[in-house]
């Protein structure tokens, strides 16, 4: 089934021949869903069946055509992707701009041994070059080849070996999802309703219990299903994350692609020393942030910091000198002002906040896009200002709120200067090529 070695004369490759079936299945399911809704109307069942039956060949023909017209090819520095039946589209993706590569396997694709390969580059709202579907070995081989080329290595470099850093055990994942204030309140409310129903012998009250139990589903079950069997492994290609129960996802984040990090310690996790690590990665901006922007769903602090050291080498946030906010901040943030702090060393800017739910934002100076200082009316009266450090879109919005105004401006100026110095000595985008190796003239930009 591997089509990787046997290339046609043009060098263009096709997706897996089962692709139309998998794609057509989706169209078919949509038609059936619409038909089922219409069944409640006054349409005759006979016509419905006819319509559904007619949609099958249409879906198959469309699927076949779109498969026929989809080709891809690795062309030196670029991936070329030709798609479209009526409106032809030819796209080139520069591999040195690769931000991440995901291999996604939805449930049905898994049963057929297929996988989708997604290339993420900065900009754009969804995955820029989704290759759905390839056979699993072909997807693996292509991922290895893309990463080798993106790193500046020869394309037949064997797949990089990996070492597992962290796995998240099932019981910890489930416990962590139950240990949130929202879930506990919901559970208590559920128990109260059930107790009331029993005490008053009013089974009608159980009607309330069902939606309450169901409302727990998306918040608790969703993350468990998404982050099932979460594994973080390290390889010269970068970090590899693998997770998922029904749809499995294998993400590869090359070195230097993490733009900002947030460590979240919810109130109920603190006694266990657990935290969650979220990241901004340029390619993941728009789509499914909650799926792709989690570096570690739940882990003890030491493990989280071990992973953090791989993401941000030479960074030790425990040695960063943190400064609190002036006392006047209590008028704008009476509950948690003592827990606001910020500081910087020569590599990163760190901001902490939160009394109950602690958050720590970390931005490497070299990843700063722009910096802002804001001051509301009340802050102005109190001589305070807030610093915002802008990075690529994602869950992390690094801010240091309610600093003394003059100190905030000094921090801002210092940060901008540090970012300038860090940029001028940044490693190359092709992470395997040496900084002093000759580079093409327009690598950056």
């Amino acid at each position, binding site marked *: 089934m591997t089509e990787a070695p046997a290339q046609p004369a043009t060098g263009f490759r096709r997706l897996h021949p089962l692709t139309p079936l998998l794609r057509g299945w989706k169209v078919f399911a949509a038609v059936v869903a619409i038909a089922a809704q219409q069944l409640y109307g006054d349409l005759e069942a006979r016509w419905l069946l006819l319509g559904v039956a007619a949609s099958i060949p249409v879906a198959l023909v469309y699927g076949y055509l779109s498969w026929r017209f989809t080709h891809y090819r690795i062309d030196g520095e670029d991936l070329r992707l030709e798609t479209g039946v009526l409106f032809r589209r030819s796209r080139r993706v520069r591999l040195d701009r690769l931000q991440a590569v995901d291999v996604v396997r939805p449930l049905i694709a898994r049963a057929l041994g297929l996988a989708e390969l997604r290339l993420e580059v900065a900009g754009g709202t969804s995955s820029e070059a989704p290759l759905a579907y390839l056979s699993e070995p072909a997807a693996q081989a292509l991922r290895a080849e893309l990463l080798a080329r993106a790193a500046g290595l020869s394309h037949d470099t064997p797949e990089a070996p990996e070492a597992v850093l962290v796995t998240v055990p099932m019981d910890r994942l489930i416990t962590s999802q139950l240990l949130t204030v929202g879930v506990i309140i919901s559970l208590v409310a559920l128990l109260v309703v059930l107790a009331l129903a029993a005490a008053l012998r009013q089974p009608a009250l159980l009607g309330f219990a069902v939606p309450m139990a169901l409302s727990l589903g998306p918040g608790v079950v969703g993350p468990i299903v998404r982050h099932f069997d979460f594994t973080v492994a390290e390889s010269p290609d970068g970090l590899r994350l693998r997770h998922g129960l029904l749809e499995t996802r294998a993400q590869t984040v090359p070195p230097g692609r993490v733009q900002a990090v947030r460590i979240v310690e919810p109130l109920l996790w603190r006694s266990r020393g657990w935290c969650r690590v979220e990241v901004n990665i340029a390619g993941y901006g728009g789509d499914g942030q909650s799926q792709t922007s989690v570096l570690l769903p739940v882990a003890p602090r030491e493990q989280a910091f071990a992973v953090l050291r791989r993401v941000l080498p030479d960074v030790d946030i425990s040695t960063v000198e943190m400064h609190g906010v002036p006392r006047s901040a209590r008028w704008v943030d009476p509950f948690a002002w003592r827990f606001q702090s910020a500081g910087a060393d020569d590599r990163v800017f760190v901001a902490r906040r939160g009394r109950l739910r602690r958050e720590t934002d970390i931005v490497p100076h070299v990843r700063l896009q*722009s910096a802002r200082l804001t001051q509301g009316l009340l802050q102005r009266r109190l001589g305070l200002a807030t610093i915002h450090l802008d990075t690529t879109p994602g869950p992390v919005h690094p801010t240091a709120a309610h600093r003394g105004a003059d100190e905030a401006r000094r921090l801002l100026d210092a940060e*901008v200067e540090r970012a300038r110095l860090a940029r001028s000595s940044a490693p190359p985008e092709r992470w395997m090529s040496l900084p002093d190796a000759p580079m093409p003239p327009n690598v950056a930009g």
Partner: protein
Amino acid sequence: MTAPDLQGEPFAPAGSPWVRVSPRLAILRRSLLAGIGGVVTLVAASLVAIASWWLVVAVLVVGAVLIAWGWVVVGRAVRSWGYAERADDLLVTRGILFRQLVVVPYGRMQFVDVTAGPLDRRFGLATVQLHTAAAATDAQIPGLVPAEAARLRDRLAARGEASSAGL
């Protein structure tokens, strides 16, 4: 970097003074304010005219006071806009009640927009907006004379190219 003396003025540019935007922006915004505010006041006044004449007077007075207040606010708001081109970055400031200072390194610029709506063109104005890879970057400068807008755009683009670093 030595900290410049910023006592009491954390939003001032270090070194060079702010370049302010064209006062014609205030004329544009004041005409809009007077036009729309005037129409709204007159409509409101004619609606209450069936009730009593002193209500009409009250509406007219309130409308006039609001427009006069807006007139002053618009002037101050327009004067609060400013930008400064430094060696490695562009500074943009704005706001009276909610003040903001944005620092955008030239090397982080992805593209620069110059836009001018029909009213802007009539008043001979244009807006320059800088975009970085961060969506949160809020660096727009309204109320520039078209020649200055074009000069700024070209200069920013040239400087961005010279110190480019992508992401």
